């Protein structure tokens, strides 16, 4: 298992890259910055598991909180509204 590099409260940025393959990081969140809300544990890497490989070592998974207004430029809702996405460590910097 890979050791967690981030802790709750840390500011993180999602890598803005678009490789082929099966990737759990949604397109719309790539390149955006948020704050680690919690560490969810560590799980097999889905990008590897999707290709018949072991997925080891397990990657830490984080729940990251983003401001809706930062994610959607035309967002009309409450300025306090947030969006939480679970993202694997290797997608965060």
């Amino acid at each position, binding site marked *: 298992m890979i050791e967690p590099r981030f802790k709750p409260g840390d500011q993180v940025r999602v890598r803005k890259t678009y490789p082929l393959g*099966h990737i759990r990081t949604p397109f719309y969140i790539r390149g955006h910055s948020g704050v680690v809300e919690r560490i969810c544990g560590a799980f097999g890497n889905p990008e590897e*598991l*999707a290709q018949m490989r072991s997925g080891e070592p397990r990657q830490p998974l984080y729940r990251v909180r983003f401001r809706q207004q930062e994610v959607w430029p035309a967002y009309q809702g409450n300025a306090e509204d947030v969006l939480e996405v679970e993202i694997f460590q290797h997608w965060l910097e």
Partner: protein
Amino acid sequence: MGGLPAGKVEPTEHDYEEWERRVDALMILLSGVQGHKKLMTVDELRKNIEALPSDAYERMSYYERWVTSITQTMIQRGVITTEELGRKMAEIEKRD
């Protein structure tokens, strides 16, 4: 959907057809629960659903996507061959 505009979401309750329950059970069994051999992962299920052409994805129901993806995964892993699949499909078509 997935960050793309898709209009209003209309949630509705519905019963599952018998074949849909079977597809769900098939996925659970192939995932290696209860001491069965693990023959696929949920990530492969998702990968092969994502690989569907967009018109096929739109046309298919939820479990039609699942059964198509499971079949594709079993072929990729060599659990079944296209030869066996084709013969079985022809055999079933002949049933009443």
